[in-house]
């Protein structure tokens, strides 16, 4: 066997060795990528929202808008207070309700309800909304995010569970057709 032959044999073995590692790497990449993308995959498969009761309807007097809080349906023991979420509940006339996310539709800061002027105002960039959640002024391009709701056995239920964001398509649909389940 000449030197050249043995060299090319070694070169071929090196190539095979690298190819073998590439295969191992590709197989290894599957669980790693699956692990990294799990929050996305879970959102698509099961969704993050679910129905739960906010409490007795009598907690929300007619004609008023009040803050309600709930423990997020999906949470971990170590989430602490961060899994306690707030929403604004508006009882329009005793039978009709609206439930808004506290997150401004601009960049998510917490909007506050001012009953005297009948406005939701945002402390960050100056967004303002009317009592029905529609946009009044400022940078938001749309009204407040609304949650689907229903009344069952005297309790107000909402369909919630994830942080509403301006790009979240689900919330855009919700806001247009205020449908009740």
């Amino acid at each position, binding site marked *: 066997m000449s030197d050249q032959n043995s060299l090319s044999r070694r070169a071929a073995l090196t190539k095979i060795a690298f190819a073998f590692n590439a295969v191992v790497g590709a197989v290894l990449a599957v669980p790693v990528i699956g692990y990294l993308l799990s929050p996305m995959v879970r959102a698509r498969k099961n969704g993050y929202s679910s129905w739960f009761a906010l409490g007795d309807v009598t907690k929300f007097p007619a004609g008023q808008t009040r803050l309600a809080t709930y423990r997020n349906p999906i949470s*971990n023991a170590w989430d602490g207070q961060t899994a306690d979420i707030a929403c604004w509940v508006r009882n329009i006339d005793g039978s009709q309700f609206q439930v808004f996310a506290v997150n401004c539709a601009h960049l*998510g*800061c917490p909007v506050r309800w001012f009953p005297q002027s009948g406005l939701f105002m945002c402390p960050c960039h100056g967004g303002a909304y009317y009592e029905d959640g529609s946009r009044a002024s400022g*940078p938001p*391009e749309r009204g407040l995010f609304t949650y689907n709701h229903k009344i069952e056995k005297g309790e107000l239920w909402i369909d919630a569970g994830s942080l509403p964001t301006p790009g979240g398509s689900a919330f855009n649909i919700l806001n247009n057709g205020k449908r009740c389940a």
Partner: protein
Amino acid sequence: MRLISQIGEWFDARLQIAADLRETMDHPVPKSAASWFYVFGSGALVIFGLQVVTGILLALLYVPSAGEAWNSLQALNHNVTMGWFLRGMHGWGSNFMVAIVLLHMVQVFLFGAYKFPRELTWVVGICLLLMTLGMAFTGQVLRFDQDAYWGLGIGASIASRVPIMGPQIVHLMLGGPIIAGATLSRFFALHVFVIPGTLIGLVGLHLLMVLKLGINEWPMPGRVVRRATYLKEYKELVHNDGEPFVPYAIWKDVFFAGILIACVVLCAAYFGPFGPTGRPDPTNIQAIPRPDYFFLWLYALLALLPPEMETPALLIGPVVVLGGLLLMPFFFGEGEKSWKRRPVAVISVLLIAVALGTFTHLSSYTPWSPIMDAWSGDPIPPSDLAHRSALERQGALVFQQKQCHNCHSLGNEGGMRGPALDSVATRLTQDQLIRQVIQGGGNMPAYGKNLSPAQTTALVAFLETLRPEGQAPARNAALADEGTASAPASAATPKK
């Protein structure tokens, strides 16, 4: 002495590093480069080292758990010996690092140091800038308080605007459906492992290139960079007018390092640590979130951009800026280095500095935001009531109650979201005032549904009194006759 050198030789026989070290120390630098303007790069490295040390010290006690992080920061501030000081060092160190990195970048840009053959050094430098800002943002998140919580919400809202992939990116960023434990854990991993690891690697590369290519010479007007001749010219310059880096140039770097660390120590000792502000409790909606100072300009920009421009600006803007910065050395890799012959470069730097400075200044008093503590509970200032009819006083009450003060100031008190109303009666007629109050417009909400006709009448009567003495009220020019007849009359003229 003999023993020390013998030990040294023993190690070097095994490490084989002394020759390389000596070469590095002795590498010649142009005499002109031994300048106080050339200390920012090493300064940034020193602060980075300081951040690593103080960061590790904080990590000995910090708990990266959404439920406990805030408590562990409180313990660091109050219960642990000198914990407050180390938090101060790390917080102030981050401010200094951002500032020094930016200064370094401006100096490199104005001295034309990004030109041939140092294009890649610049590109790596831009990556280092991004990593530094990444450290600043993730660090603000680890200070897990109200600002961090809502800051993450703002980040998520921006990310969600990416077309198609937006919501998925948000879930990836948050590690779940909401800002919670998984979010803090991944930002901890980014801040403590991923970004610093990348930073260390890139700093090494950056430094290696500075050593291999030589430090940029002091730019002289007329000494033009050409790809064909530069390397030879630089070699000659260093040969004829160069000195070894140690000790000719390094003493300034060492001095600057001492000054920087002393400044961080003084700031930490005098001003103390940053926060944490209120607990990261999403149900406490009294929060008024604010970013750290290096992102204040962005805070202002997001408030001032027209709504329809915001998403394109947020998504395209960074790509354009980043692309421009990365490609710049490839388009302007030759030519004049001196700022004296590069007016566009100087004006660009000044323009960007003034713009960022102005936005940052605006963010210190956020004129675009209503003031959130309403005046509705306060007594009405006597000046709003004096010399006014009963109806006008009723209007002053409506003004106070309906939170008009949140956005409008009277006598320098109140928000700046809307115009000051001290002289509104000279600008708007009675009809215009009624229309503006009821229908809103020009960024003002409509109050038609929220005011009874009697309240509107009273409020407008009060607004009509708001004009400086001696200035005529606004009048409808189309009704010329009536205008001349009624203009000098009391502003509170009854309607019709």
